[in-house]
């Protein structure tokens, strides 16, 4: 036998493919070569065990038998000797050798006994067997005692004393062949060997057959494992083979394959999942990349566009101004040129402002305010600004206040105005027939937590496609470039407006129908509306006149007075001087703050003070902030208007904190400048120390009182420190007042006003007391909000002017301040 089971066909999965015969044979041989040791080991084990057992037992039995046989033989012979000896006693005693020989002759029956003899008491041989001894046979010496000896030559010698032990009557000696014994022994040996051989053979056969029970499952397992590895097929399983260790092995193998299979499928799943995610991510990234590319392209387009947008008016400005420098242009031509330059300049300013705005927005640096403003006011203003253009185009303008509208909302009026103007401007721009309507309404009920107000701009213009609408609000992307060419604009206005609306807590959404018109809804948060008064809606249609609109600016009103212009820029000096002089004002120019101060002082000495000071904030030697504060600390109360290029709210505040009353942003608008100057000249003339700010001011920052206020008790040794403390704490009180006003907490406002009234008087700030009293009364009595707020503003202005110490102690120009004091 080759030592292998023959039914390897059972190996393999119960539901797997059958094993290829050729492969199987090879596998068998291969396996047999490898597993010969296993089967051989088992066989060897069995055979060895059986062999050893059999050998030992056979040997034991053999030895036992041999000993027994020898014992029995020697006993036999001894017995024979004894009997014969006993029978021979008479013969020996009676000296009857004949009888003795006869007796011994009976040994003939014992073929084993070769020789026997009787010894008489003297040790002489008395009788022998056989009677005739062969010649030369050496008779052994007479024994002296009983003995039984197995000689080496295979004989048994027995010598027995005849007669009773104490009487030595002689000895009998028997010499027997033990070849029968030998034969028997050899017989045993052969039998034992035969038994051994047969048993071994049988056991080997049995072992060989029975070891299958062990090796077959193992071989199957081995085969299965190899198959798994070879074919990478983890679905293979082995059959169960009962509960023993082999069964456990098989079950374990199956279980392991289960786990491996699961792990593999888990890995595959994970990998697929990963692939899906990677694909998804790749798609996302592609989309993002596309978007980024689009954005990048759009930015490049924007830059190109902006470059173009900036250069175009610049070209006009430079070109036409260049033409103006030429000879040979008529007056009307020159007028036209100037118009063109002016227009382009404004346009360029708009573009630059838009670019700055959008850059600020993109950089996240845009801030909006939350202060009370009137939606009515803002809407009306925006509409009125459009009126000229609408009339020129022959389209109607309508404003509608639908439903109850809050008198005030918490928002940023500047930005809101900007948005309204932008959208209304677009509406008017894109409408040739029909008209533009602005509908103002509350979008949410006042009780809701975050109510919103809506400004809807509806036009009957050209309309646009949905695709155009979707890209409308994106910065750097206009409806399409043809629009820009046709209608002008930067393409940024709507993007800015949308962003601003979002920053104001709302959004701008639009719908449009090609050919029919568009509608844009601006929604912004209003802040809490619980205690805000509402007014009912109404509609107002602005008249459409057929008067040809005049592009010329209105005739300037004539002013008179003296103005000090502190400005270091030559061109601005000239421009502003020209404008003011044209308006009939006397202008003195100072190149920096120090010179301005000198002029102010000298003007005061000459008792010909300036009506208004226009102070540029950025100047060498001494800038506007320093100069203004200096003047104020000296007690100067005249209006100082700041000229600043910064348009941020903080900068404005800085100007006002420095002591300015108002400000004008560069580039200076002529009409705006004149208006402002006129305004302050009037004020100065009427000598109104405290301003009466209304919320309808175009500037959201309220103007302030002119001079700093010092305590009359500043030098009092007992109260001096308390005065300083009061001044130090004043900003907190100001904040409190503002907070109460914002939250419409009139009760608290009353309380705070009362406190201020009391303290201000105690610490020598007598000017504040009456205003505080008025505020307290107004808040307590529940007067109209407008009144309360205006009184509050007044008080705030005063409060902001208080200073600790005394005016004389603060300045080296104390001699000069003296005239201003009081």
């Amino acid at each position, binding site marked *: 036998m080759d030592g292998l089971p023959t039914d390897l066909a059972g190996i393999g999965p119960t539901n797997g493919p059958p094993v290829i015969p050729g492969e199987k044979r090879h596998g068998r041989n291969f396996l047999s070569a490898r597993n010969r040791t296993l089967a051989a080991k088992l066989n060897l084990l069995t055979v060895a065990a059986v062999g050893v057992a059999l050998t030992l037992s056979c040997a034991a039995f053999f030895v036992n038998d041999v000993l027994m046989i020898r014992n029995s033989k020697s006993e036999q012979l001894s017995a024979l000797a004894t009997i014969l000896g006993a*029978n021979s*006693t*008479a*013969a020996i*005693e*009676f*000296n*009857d050798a004949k*009888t003795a020989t006869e007796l011994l002759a009976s040994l003939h029956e014992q073929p084993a006994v070769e020789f026997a003899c009787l010894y008489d008491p003297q040790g002489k041989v008395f009788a022998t067997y056989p009677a005739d001894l062969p010649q030369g046979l050496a008779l052994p010496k007479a024994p002296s005692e009983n003995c039984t000896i197995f000689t080496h030559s295979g004989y048994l010698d027995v010598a027995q004393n005849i007669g009773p032990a104490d009487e030595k009557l002689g000895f009998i000696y028997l010499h027997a062949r033990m070849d029968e014994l030998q034969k028997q022994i050899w017989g045993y040996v052969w039998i034992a060997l035969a038994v051994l051989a047969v048993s071994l053979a049988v056991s080997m056969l049995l072992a060989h057959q029975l070891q299958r029970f062990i090796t077959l499952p193992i071989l199957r397992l081995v085969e299965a494992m190899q198959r798994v590895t070879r074919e990478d097929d983890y679905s293979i399983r082995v059959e169960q083979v009962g509960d023993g260790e082999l069964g456990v092995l098989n079950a374990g193998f199956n279980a392991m394959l289960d786990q491996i299979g699961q792990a593999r499928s888990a890995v595959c799943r994970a990998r697929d999942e990963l692939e899906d995610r990677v694909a998804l991510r790749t798609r996302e990234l592609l989309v993002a990349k596309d978007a980024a590319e689009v954005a990048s392209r759009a930015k490049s387009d924007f830059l190109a566009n902006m470059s173009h947008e900036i250069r175009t008016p610049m070209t006009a400005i430079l070109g036409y101004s260049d033409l103006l420098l030429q000879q040979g242009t008529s007056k009307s031509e020159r007028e036209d040129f100037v118009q063109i330059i002016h227009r382009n300049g404004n346009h360029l300013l708009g573009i630059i402002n838009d670019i700055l705005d959008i850059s600020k927005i993109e950089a996240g640096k845009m801030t909006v305010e939350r202060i009370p403003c009137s939606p009515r006011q803002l809407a009306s203003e925006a509409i009125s600004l459009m009126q000229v253009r609408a009339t020129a185009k022959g389209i109607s303008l309508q404003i509608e206040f639908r439903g109850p509208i809050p008198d005030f909302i918490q928002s940023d009026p500047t930005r809101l105005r900007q948005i309204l103007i932008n959208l209304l401007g677009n509406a008017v721009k894109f409408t040739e027939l029909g008209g533009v309507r602005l509908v103002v309404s509350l979008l949410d009920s006042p009780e809701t937590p975050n109510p919103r107000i809506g400004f809807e701009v509806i036009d009957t213009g050209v309309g646009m496609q949905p695709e155009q609408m979707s890209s409308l609000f994106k910065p750097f992307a206009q409806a399409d470039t043809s629009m820009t060419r046709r209608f002008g604009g930067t393409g940024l206005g709507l993007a800015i407006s949308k962003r601003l609306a979002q920053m104001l807590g709302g959004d701008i959404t639009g719908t449009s129908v090609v050919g029919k018109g568009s509608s844009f809804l601006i929604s912004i948060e209003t802040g809490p509306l619980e205690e805000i008064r509402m007014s009912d809606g109404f509609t107002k249609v602005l008249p459409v006149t057929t008067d040809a609109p005049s592009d010329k600016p209105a005739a300037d009103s004539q002013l008179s007075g003296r103005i000090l212009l502190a400005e270091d820029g030559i061109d601005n000096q000239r421009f502003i001087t020209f404008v003011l002089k044209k308006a009939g004002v006397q202008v003195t120019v100072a190149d920096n703050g120090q010179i301005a101060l000198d002029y102010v002082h000298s003007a005061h000495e000459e008792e010909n003070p300036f009506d208004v000071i226009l102070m540029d904030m950025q100047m060498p030697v001494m800038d506007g902030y320093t100069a203004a504060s200096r003047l104020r600390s000296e007690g100067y109360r005249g209006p100082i208007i700041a000229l600043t290029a910064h348009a941020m709210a903080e900068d404005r505040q800085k100007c006002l904190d420095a002591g300015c009353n108002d400000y004008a942003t560069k580039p200076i608008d002529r009409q705006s400048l004149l208006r402002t100057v006129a305004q302050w000249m009037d004020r100065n003339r009427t000598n109104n120390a405290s301003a009466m700010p209304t919320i309808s001011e175009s500037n959201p920052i309220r103007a302030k009182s002119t001079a700093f206020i010092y305590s009359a008790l500043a030098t009092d040794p007992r109260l001096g420190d308390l005065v300083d403390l009061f001044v130090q704490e004043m900003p907190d009180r100001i904040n409190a007042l503002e907070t109460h006003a914002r939250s419409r907490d009139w009760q608290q406002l009353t309380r705070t006003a009362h406190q201020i009234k009391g303290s201000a008087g105690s610490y020598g700030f007598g000017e504040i007391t009456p205003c505080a009293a008025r505020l307290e009364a107004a808040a307590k009595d529940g007067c109209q909000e407008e009144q309360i707020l205006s009184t509050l503003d007044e008080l705030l202005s005063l409060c902001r002017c208080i200073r600790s110490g005394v005016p004389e102690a603060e300045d080296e120009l104390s001699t000069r301040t003296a005239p201003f004091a009081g």
Partner: protein
Amino acid sequence: MNTKPPYLLQSLLLLLTLNLGIASLHAQEDVAAAASREHRIKAAYLYQFGRYVQWPAKAFSSAEAPFVIGILKQDPIAAELDQLALIKKIENRPIQIRQFSPEDGVPSCHILFLSAFVMPEVQTVLVGKAAGKNILLVGESEKFLNLGGAVRFVIEGNNVRLHIARKAAVREELIISSKLLQVARVLD
């Protein structure tokens, strides 16, 4: 007659006489030796009989009662028997040799030995007297067994043989061991 020395004859005669004398001495000695040997053997046999024959219990008064061998006075075997009686025992009994005269009658004994020199008539009487006394009658004469004796010494060549009449022994309630019978010639 020639001229032979006169003394030769005498010396020869002397020598011859001497030799004859020596020879006769030797012969006598031999005879004497042979005789003593014979007596020794017989004595030994008598002793052996004590061992190979079984007497009934009534033959002994007690367990220590001696074993008696009766012989006629002046029997030459007496010397050897006496020697034997000194040394040996039969069944742990001391051996006693009782010498008697015929006119005394048969003594109480176990073995009675009548040598060949005893007159046949005496033997007959004694045998007759010994009957019923559990005595093993041992003799030598030719007709001893016919007389009623149990055992007879027979000289065959150089050996002493035994002839046994079993019936005689049986009559006296004596059991003779088969061993003895084996070595003897049993006549009935």
